[in-house]
């Protein structure tokens, strides 16, 4: 079977963000980058599926500037067979539907049985791309999966719902599945597998949105206003502890 995994590179969310010169997004400079956390679960699930069915071919796709070969290499080291880099230095300016159009443009007529991706990215967080890819390809999509089983063209998944309950959903391939955190435990690439990954095929393609025009623009990107009232304590550890205990005595009844 043929499997596509769509991943994104995002800044580490602990990073110190700055707004870019145009005031439309974060400044890309001086950030630590990593694979979007949700996509790590997508890669892991695809690799596990290959281990289960043996006869599977895993293509990992990432859109972005040259630096996105890093998460592609990580996915290859985790067990994907080939990488596709859609070399697009402007990817951060594109809206979800344009990203989905690029992915669908690549995937059409390639007959992927399953397309795994994260349910959202950690930076934009639109949760739109996976479903839009499925709509463009005219295939099913199930979002926010936290459990996955495959048997001979049939899939059985659990969708995470609000409040911790889950919906049991069945379907057939071809299908797009968007992965929620906790679906599995993503593996760490081993050194031999990192070495092997260097020899795997990496296809570089030019960006093509198939003429998808812009539908929205960013009027502003900014830091939220700090709400007043919250006290910030900084300093030496023992003093901080004393201050906090004093505050708890004054402001709460829990130390009474």
């Amino acid at each position, binding site marked *: 079977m043929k499997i596509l995994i769509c991943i994104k590179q995002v800044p580490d969310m602990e990073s110190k963000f700055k707004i870019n010169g145009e005031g439309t997004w974060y400044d890309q400079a001086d950030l630590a980058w990593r694979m979007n956390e949700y996509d790590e679960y997508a890669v892991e699930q695809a690799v596990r599926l290959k281990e289960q069915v043996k006869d599977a071919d895993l293509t990992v796709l990432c859109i972005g500037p040259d630096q996105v070969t890093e998460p592609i290499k990580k996915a290859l080291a985790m067990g994907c067979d080939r990488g596709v880099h859609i070399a697009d230095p402007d990817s951060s300016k594109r809206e979800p539907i344009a990203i989905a159009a690029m992915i669908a443009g690549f995937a059409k007529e390639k007959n992927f049985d399953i397309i795994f991706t994260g349910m959202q990215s*950690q930076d934009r967080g639109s949760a*739109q791309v996976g479903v839009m890819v499925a709509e463009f390809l005219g295939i*099913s999509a199930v979002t926010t999966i936290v459990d996955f089983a495959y048997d001979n063209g049939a899939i059985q998944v659990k969708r995470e*719902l609000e409040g911790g309950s*889950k919906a049991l959903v069945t379907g057939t391939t071809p299908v797009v599945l968007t992965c929620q955190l906790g679906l599995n435990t993503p593996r760490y690439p081993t050194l031999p597998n990192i070495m092997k990954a260097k020899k795997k095929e990496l296809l570089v393609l030019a960006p093509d949105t198939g003429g998808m025009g*812009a539908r*929205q623009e960013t*009027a502003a990107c900014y830091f939220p206003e700090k709400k007043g009232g*919250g006290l910030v304590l900084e300093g030496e550890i023992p003093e901080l*502890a004393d201050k906090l205990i004093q505050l708890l005595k004054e402001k709460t009844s829990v130390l009474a």
Partner: protein
Amino acid sequence: MKTLLVAEFREGKLRAEYSQLIAFAQQQQTEAAMFLVGTASDLPKFNGPLYLADVAKYGEYNPTVHKKLLLEAIDKEQPAQIIFLHSSYGWDLAPRIAVALQAAQISEIIAIEDGLPVIPVCNAKLRRRIKATTPRTVLTIQAGAFGLDGDPEGVPTVVAVDTDASGKVQCTGYEAAKIEGVDLTKAEIIVSAGRGVGKPENVAMVQALAKALGGEYGASRPVVDAGWVEHNRQVGTTGSTVTPKLYVACGISGAIQHLAGMKKSDFIVGINTDKDAPIGEVANVLVVADLKQFLPVLTEKLNAR
């Protein structure tokens, strides 16, 4: 401007969150209609047209069929905006409608500023204000961001919608949330571990502080997903919503889903190395420190009292 609100129905019941959709429409002073795949015996309290498809016939989660039914309602109503909750139902269905209508989709709106939707990005560290350039828009609103002052009121005018479409995925049932063991919703003091604890061994520091304070320990999602703390102790949208007298967030940056589960606590203490972490937005006190150094000292001092 006409607005169509997409209500939700699950496990045999109308979801009460539809009132948030009404609140959003009222804030914008738009003429609203509603869409629901539900049942005539459990109608939303709402004055206006309700496009109702029969859940017994079409199922509770059947995206292809619900898409067709909703497009049918859109065709009849001709709304300029279609509003969903940013929920497991909304974020699944909305992009399908956006593609079908060639409309801009804006996800997880928390406010309208200067007439434009505002959304959180980068784990709520930043905000974006977005201008749609299409005649129609598909919007999802963050759970809890818009609320009515009182209970919703009214009686809808039901308009039946139907389709002969069928879908290739099927919801076969539900699995209830596991609620055995500790019930954090009843705890008066909760000390929670977040990603900042670093490794499973450090959860013990959080447990020790909880014990010193006479409370329970909890955790944010990443810590539960990693298997360091059991799921019944998870605080947040997919875990428990808690309102203790004291909530201490240790190494929790403050993702929206976590904040939604604890921001109504009486007194909130954040312990974080990052002064700009979103937990600071809800914390009464933010201690800027490495919890691995701070917690043992605090616990010792509390125990020595």
